[in-house]
């Protein structure tokens, strides 16, 4: 396989005496959806927070496009094009779709907002993901459904031209039809050449959308498989610790 966009080699993290990550190897490739699964407390969130620069790793190596980097601040992660779409949907209800998509990186012209340009780019971003569910860009986010909000949150990463997009439980609160829409969105995001990392408890979703599956068990990576070369039963085994792969450490 070609060079991964982001690769972790033996990263560790501990909180006091508790070793949460005990030397993790992990990789995500451009154009592929990598699912990160594991039971509660396995270390998924800690692994993601390290990538987002929120809680830097204690040890190990992070390679971004083959070069070692230090992700010790959210800004550093954003500079490399790593975007996290959080579970609790980091959107502002009182702002409209365009304002949310450009929050923190507004386009300016002559010292004031270039509204027209932001609208055009937002429309283009939604268009590139074939989003059909959003009617007007001027809607307040408060008036959107859960699926539409997730859509806006994901489209934000397109506007930001992210190279790595991390989705934390993107379908956790959604109904069947909306889950379908969001998973399609995730697929299209990857088809645009983005490395997508998706955290999920729902193995049905995982097998529907993911290319690669990495399983965390109590702070160690117990399995790294492709979706085609595995099945839900095996993955459940890895998650619960009844099965392990010998060739991953």
């Amino acid at each position, binding site marked *: 396989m070609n060079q991964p966009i982001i690769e972790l080699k033996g990263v560790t993290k501990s909180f006091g005496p508790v070793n949460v990550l005990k030397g993790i190897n992990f990789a995500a490739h451009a154009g592929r959806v990598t699912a990160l699964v594991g039971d509660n407390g396995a270390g998924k969130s800690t692994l993601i927070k390290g990538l987002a620069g929120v809680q830097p790793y204690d040890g190990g190596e992070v390679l971004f496009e083959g070069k070692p980097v230090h992700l010790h601040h*959210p*800004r550093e992660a*954003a500079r490399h094009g790593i975007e*996290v779409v*959080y579970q*609790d*949907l*980091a*959107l*502002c*209800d*009182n*702002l409209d779709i365009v*304002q949310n998509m450009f*929050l*923190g*990186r*507004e*386009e*300016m*012209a002559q*010292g*004031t*907002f*270039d*509204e*027209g*340009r932001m*609208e*055009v*780019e937002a*429309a*283009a971003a*939604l*268009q*590139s993901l074939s989003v059909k569910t*959003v*009617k*007007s*860009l*001027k*809607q*307040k986010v*408060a*008036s959107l459904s859960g699926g539409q909000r997730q859509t806006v949150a994901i489209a934000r990463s397109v506007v930001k031209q992210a190279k790595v997009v991390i989705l934390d439980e993107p379908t956790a609160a959604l109904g069947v039809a909306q889950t379908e829409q969001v998973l399609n969105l995730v697929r299209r995001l990857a088809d645009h050449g983005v490395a997508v990392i998706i955290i999920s408890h729902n193995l049905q979703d995982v097998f529907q959308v993911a290319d690669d599956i990495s399983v965390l068990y109590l702070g160690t990576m117990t399995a790294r498989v492709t979706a085609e070369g595995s099945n839900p039963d095996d993955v459940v085994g890895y998650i619960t610790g009844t099965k392990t792969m010998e060739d991953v450490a």
Partner: protein
Amino acid sequence: MSTESTSPVAAEAAKKPETQSLLGEGVEHGVIDHARAYVGRVRGGEMGALPALGGLLVLFAIFGASHEAFLTPRNMANLMTQAAPLVVLGMALVFVLLLGEIDLSAGVTFGVAMAVFVKYTQPDGLSWPVGLALAMGIGFAVGATIGFFVAKIGVPSFVVTLGLFLGLQGVILIVIGAGGTYRLIPEPIKAIQNSNMPVWGGWVLLVGLMALLVAVAMWDRWRRSKSGAPNGSLSIMFLKLGAIAVIGGALVVFLSVDRGSVNQAIAGVPIVVPLVLILGLIGTFVLDRTKFGRYIYAIGGNREAARRSGVNVTAVKWSAFIVCSSLAVVAGLLYVSRVGSADASTGREIVLSGVAAAVVGGVSLFGGRGRLMHAAVGALVIATIENGLGLLGFSAGATLAVSGGVLILAATVDALARRRSGGSTNS
């Protein structure tokens, strides 16, 4: 952030029909379309200043019908000078209310600043520009102090400003001395609330304002079409601007009528009007068109989302408190200019009226919702109640009771509107 003109990707995407239709949604194409969209927004719970404007009209009708002196040029000019300090204080508070914070000390902040200003600009004291700089400096310092405790340390703004509300009253007492009163001396400051522009000045003001509004609107349209974004219809734009011109023109005509006594003619728009207008325009510009303003709304809507989007929450909050306290000092200047003196109680009562003005106008106490204009309209409502009931010979007690009732009514209308829209109650 890139500074080049529209990116090629966006320009190309903009040409696609799907993108065009998405962009076109929500852009009104005619008067009827616009009216329909507006009704939709109101039904959706975005009442804005509508209840307050309606209330203002009702009040004008009631007072106009029940007292012949209410709708006279003299009383209207009086109402404007009466409302001006509250309008500015309300606008000041909007900056912190939008964050979901509050500043209970805004009134006593201007009390301290005005006590110092009036005391030290007595005939043997400082020149008034120096005194003014000192007063503004006090506003800045108080705002910076509140901001430090709220934004940096994380003390609730209610507690910090309640503490300052008590503490600064003590400072006023120390500056003024118990029971003391200082008369306002500097003529230019007195003139703000007690003199009028020449009659032609009112027309220059109106023409200038309209020219500015038209220029901004046309410039916006030009820039939007350059990016490939559709514009709303011209008829709407001219209808809106026309309404402003007609109402403004009527006011100028009204205030150009001689409202003086036999001995002395008084006519023209009060000097305070352009001053408040300019503050309102600058404030609206900051809130609507700059990052600082957008981030205030974002923090008020979802603090954590703003932080994760790279907004420096601490700096924005801190600055907002400084803006609030500094604007409050301007409100104090208008207040003292009208009253003509400063004493130990200056600014003590007005702050809650300021908060009430903002809420009556449709600014949410929970943050994220409201505009500067809303606070101005709300302040006019409260000032009109005071003015009208005063004319009808009601006591100050009745005025307070009615103002309180209106506040609760406004909050109820807002709550009901939002419940109907099914929106969250805390956004």
